């Protein structure tokens, strides 16, 4: 006679256990630590932040306003790397220090993504005789090709899904949404560059817009090489001024991290104005915190291009 009661008790017991287990699971899901992602340049930060959404704690290894071409990690930066789940960088051409550090750390929990690996990388136009060939001349500014950006977003998605497979669908949705925005941006650029008086632009900064120029059939003449270090010689500057004169160019572009000095000098020689183009790798703190700032920056660049290349 006891049987049904016992059965009920067992059933009740099971119910309690499942409830508790479910509660524990929900609690653990909400309090579960976020995916800690470190990136080097700002576009990678934005891509990772968009894909990971609420599940990501995405930070930049480099402080705002610093220039990745000349930055070197300090002790505290290596410490940050040891507590991250994922590290995204462009490649040895931009962050030559990354490989050494990552090799010396050899932490199995850290997933590393070299964003530019295997992509169709541009070679420097500033190749001079005697210049070291190889890594140094590979153009690292891949994020200025909005098609390549979509590939990078997919790569980031792949790694994040590996880290947290249970949220895979959400990550995929977020990545698709962001890629759609990149596609829109790409279309806007194509549309604008269809009807421009000039196809050559002179950039008083470092040679950052090679990918953008390749994608939209423009020609970039930059004052500095791939990294903004060695100043131009007088002859180089005269050469650029002559080209600007010949091309009847009316706008010289400059970038924030290099400053407008050389752009102003070229502009005053040929009677042109100057406009800002932000390569987007290092940004101010305020920009860092706002959402979709990379796409906004690129839209502002497009406005500058529209003015400078005289597009309808």
């Amino acid at each position, binding site marked *: 006679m006891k049987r049904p009661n016992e059965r009920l008790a067992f059933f009740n017991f099971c119910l309690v256990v499942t409830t508790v287990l479910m509660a524990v699971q929900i609690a653990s899901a909400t309090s579960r630590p976020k995916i800690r992602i470190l990136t080097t340049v700002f576009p990678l930060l934005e891509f990772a932040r968009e894909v990971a959404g609420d599940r990501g704690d995405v930070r930049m290894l480099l402080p705002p306003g610093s220039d990745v071409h000349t930055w070197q990690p300090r002790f505290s930066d290596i410490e940050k790397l040891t507590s991250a789940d994922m590290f995204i960088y462009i490649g040895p051409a931009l962050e030559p220090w990354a490989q050494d550090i990552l090799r010396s750390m050899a932490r199995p929990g850290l997933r590393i993504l070299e964003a530019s690996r295997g992509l169709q990388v541009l070679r420097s136009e500033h190749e001079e005789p005697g210049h070291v060939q190889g890594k140094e001349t590979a153009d690292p500014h891949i994020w200025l090709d909005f098609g390549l950006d979509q590939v990078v977003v997919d790569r980031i998605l792949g790694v994040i899904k590996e880290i947290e497979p249970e949220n895979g669908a959400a990550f995929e949705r977020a990545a698709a949404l962001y890629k759609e925005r990149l596609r829109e941006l790409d279309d806007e650029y194509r549309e604008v560059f269809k009807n421009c008086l000039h196809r050559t632009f002179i950039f008083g900064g470092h040679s950052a817009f090679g990918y953008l120029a390749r994608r939209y059939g423009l020609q970039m003449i930059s004052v500095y090489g791939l990294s903004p270090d060695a100043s131009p010689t007088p002859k180089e500057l005269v050469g650029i001024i002559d080209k600007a004169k010949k091309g009847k160019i009316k706008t010289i572009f400059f970038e924030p*991290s*290099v400053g407008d000095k050389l752009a102003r000098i070229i502009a005053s020689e040929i009677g042109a104005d100057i406009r800002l183009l932000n390569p987007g790798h290092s940004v101010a703190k305020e920009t860092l915190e706002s959402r979709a700032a990379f796409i906004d920056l690129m839209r502002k660049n497009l406005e500058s291009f529209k003015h400078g290349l005289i597009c309808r």
Partner: protein
Amino acid sequence: MDAFFTYGFLQRALLAGIFIAVACAVLGVFLLLRKDAMIGHGLSHITFAGVALGLFLHMMPLAVALAFSVLASLGIMKLKESAGLYGDTAIAIVSSLGMALGIILATLSQNFGVALLNYLFGEILAIEPVEVWLSMALATVVVVLVVGNYRKFMSLTFDRESARVSGIRVRRLDTLITILASVTIVLGMKVVGILLVSALIVIPAAAGLQLASNFKAAIVLSCGVGLVSVIAGLALAFVLDLPASGMIVLVGFSIFGLFFLLRKGKI
């Protein structure tokens, strides 16, 4: 070569270079005869810290560097007098302090890129009109002061004791020369950069002293060497497509070598 008449930025480079060369050459003769050749080196290093501080504070690096350099020059004088240090020990201390502060501030400001490199190796292509005027004013002040106080400076340089006895305010003139030297360094920094600016002070004066028979001749020769260095250096840099700052110093050194051989009668 007509590029120099066509392009404003080359004209500004040439003009500023000429004025700086004159100021450096005149001051250089005094400093060398006072056995103070290294002061330019020391001041340029402390100027590095000033520039880095300016970049760090987002203030005009040139103005901060100027303040730094003037203070440091007075500090070197004080250290030399009262710390009982031999020879150029005071300069060695201050210059290494300058580099140390410079590297720390530059790292803190996270602005280690172009800006700092331009100060290290000169930015002769980016000289603003106001900087041309400043260097002209500096050269004028240096020349006028030296011509006006020629006797005082000479006796101060050759025999401090009798200068003091004869009623010359030695300290005041010392301070004046040191301050002028630091202003010259800061302006010269734009032309050849922090790492090479002391060459503009030392090499023309040293070359002039090789051949000059008297003080006046030394100053005139020194100015000549400085001018030729800047003009020929810039022209060569343009023709050979090489950095201007390096070429200016190389030309100066070649003239020095030539004068040295001439004096030894080897040529």
